[in-house]
């Protein structure tokens, strides 16, 4: 017998968790001597009431969709992939190598090739910790953390010693050729009327949306997805049913790494148009918050990504117009992770008890 109705599990509890996180954030804003209501208004006005704000919000949300889906796919297989940061860094390297390889004739071809490059590099970077987990029993959380740092060192080395064009002092690669320039929302029919030409949101947004659908199909509509979920729920039962743990860990982590890597399409190819240091900017970690909030469901991930996109852009607005630093967003992010992730039982247990009591009274 279920302890509470499904809607309470998927919507009510995350909503309560989120409300607690926001309430505490408001207290934090109040404690540093600012007005939480004014802060919220600044964020809404700067983000939701202007096309430019929407452009940035969608740009950030695109990143978070990729990393959020990445964490979710791994979560379904009971693997905690905390290495999105490193996988996205390596994905960026893949994108840059592809984009710099040819004077691409058209962005469509370049995008296809760059997607493959990003996914491949991200997947390889996730596959090593996955193999170490599956074959050698090395804890995947620790190895993926280590791989984040190793990726940062690799990129730092390549950008300062190998990929830096002659005569340039910046640790960054050469500019990508014009043929690898992705269309932004401004270059598209209808949307072009709304967004101006400086908008950072680009065609990658639609790839992210497609990825949401594909992950949903994979996890809930395919045999492989069923195996992943079965393995995630109970390793012993999955083994008994003939599911190979090695295969599931490898496949789920490779998909996860590929998704993280594809985030670089948005930041490196769509926005900076060259490979720079730290283009990931913590999006790999935000994927954890997004996935927890979205209950590892692609639709939840989509909503959570939009929320975090709003928070990110709103944070920039706050830093611009008020004396609240951008880091407020980091605090909100931490509280969301804490309440929707680690402290979930704090809300869940009383709510479950409430539903049980209601049911008993209804019957009696």
């Amino acid at each position, binding site marked *: 017998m279920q302890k509470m109705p499904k809607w309470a599990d998927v919507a009510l509890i995350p909503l309560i968790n989120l409300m607690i996180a926001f309430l505490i954030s408001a207290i934090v804003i109040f404690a*540093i001597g600012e007005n939480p209501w004014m802060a919220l208004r600044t964020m809404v006005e700067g983000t939701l009431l202007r096309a430019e704000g929407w452009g940035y919000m969608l740009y950030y949300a695109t990143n978070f969709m990729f990393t959020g889906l990445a964490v979710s796919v791994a979560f379904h297989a009971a693997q905690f992939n905390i290495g999105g940061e490193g996988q996205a860094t390596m994905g960026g390297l893949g994108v840059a190598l592809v984009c710099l390889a040819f004077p691409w004739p058209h962005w469509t071809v370049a995008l296809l090739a760059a997607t493959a490059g990003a996914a491949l590099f991200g997947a390889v970077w996730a596959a090593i910790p996955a193999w170490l987990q599956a074959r*050698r029993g090395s804890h995947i959380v*620790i190895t993926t953390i*280590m791989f984040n*740092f190793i990726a940062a060192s690799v990129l730092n080395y390549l950008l300062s010693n190998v990929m830096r064009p002659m005569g340039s002092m910046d640790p960054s690669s050469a500019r990508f050729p014009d043929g690898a320039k992705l269309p932004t929302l401004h270059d598209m029919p209808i949307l072009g009327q709304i967004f101006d030409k400086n908008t950072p949101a680009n065609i990658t947004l639609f790839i992210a949306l497609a990825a949401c659908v594909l992950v949903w199909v994979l996890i809930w509509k395919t045999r492989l997805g069923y195996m992943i979920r079965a393995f995630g729920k109970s390793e012993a039962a999955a083994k008994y049913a003939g599911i190979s743990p090695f295969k599931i860990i490898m496949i789920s982590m490779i998909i996860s790494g590929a998704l993280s890597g594809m985030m670089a399409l948005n930041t490196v190819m769509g926005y900076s148009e060259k490979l720079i240091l730290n283009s990931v900017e913590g999006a790999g970690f935000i994927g954890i918050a997004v996935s927890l909030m979205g209950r590892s469901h692609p639709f939840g991930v989509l909503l959570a990504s939009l929320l975090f996109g709003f928070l990110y852009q709103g944070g920039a607005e706050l830093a611009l117009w008020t004396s609240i630093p951008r880091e407020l967003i*980091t605090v909100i992010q931490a*509280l969301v992770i804490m309440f929707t992730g*680690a402290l979930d039982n704090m809300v869940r247990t009383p709510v479950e008890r409430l539903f049980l009591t209601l049911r008993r009274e209804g019957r009696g």
Partner: protein
Amino acid sequence: MTYDTLLQLLDSMVRLGVPLLLACLAGLYSERSGIFDIGLEGKMLVGAFMAGAVAFSSGSPWIGLLAAIGISVLFSLIHGVASITFRGNQLISGVAINFLASGLTVLVGQTWFGLGGRTPALENSARFEPITLPFAEALSGVPFLGPLYAELISGQTILAYAAFAAVPISWWVLYRSRFGLRLRAVGENPAAVDTAGISVVRLRFTAVMITGLLCGIAGAYLATSAPSAGFGREMTAGKGYIALAALIFAKWRPVPALGATMLFGLLEAISIRYPNIALGPITLPVQVMQAAPYILTVIILAGFVGRAIPPRAGGEPYVKER
């Protein structure tokens, strides 16, 4: 390389290794009790911030140290409540704590001092100054051992000596005291400890609080132990994760923790002093040294060079059978 350079290098190793050592021992208590803690970084960071801020406001490094320990223990209690009381995911709680620390230190620091998250520079009297051990002057003329004593062993701050003292103390606590036996047992088999009539919850909370205490000292060392003179934004810069790596490298044992943290300290010292090392035809770039602790940890974790086996009940919330 002359003897003098070697001593300077070793001195720099100690300076960089001490916060790692404190954080590593901190992690040891928590993880030995079965509570994974990837929030060492965050606790060190809030500790460093409070140490810098309070030492500046009060003019005393000791009050700063107390504040550092206080906030760090508070953060470890949050981790305890999430992972022991509410049986939440310990890794997720650790991630949240790191972000909370990273955001709050800048937010509060900017509001408090308006220096972009930095705390104001500390006067000499507001930070821990080097202590000259007896006879350091007199003995410095003695060949070989004299300079070693005068420059490396003498002239560290009280927090550094405390960190080194914590190694044998931790060894004794872990392997020779009743608390240590119970601590190790609760990390391997909490049900057995429970059956013996000892409270798993209480034991784990104690361990988590010791972790907070040591992380607080580590933070205070970063911000208020000379030559540091105040807190800087994101001051820990991944040291908490290196300490975690050292803990695995040391296979969750206190004496090897000393070796591991000093090795990682030495690697960092070398990478600062010699950015590019020429080895015959190839030059080792600085990034290799920077990544070395992480690569070594992965190799150790993979079990290619000795196997690192974590405490058996690590990461799993304990549910009493009903």
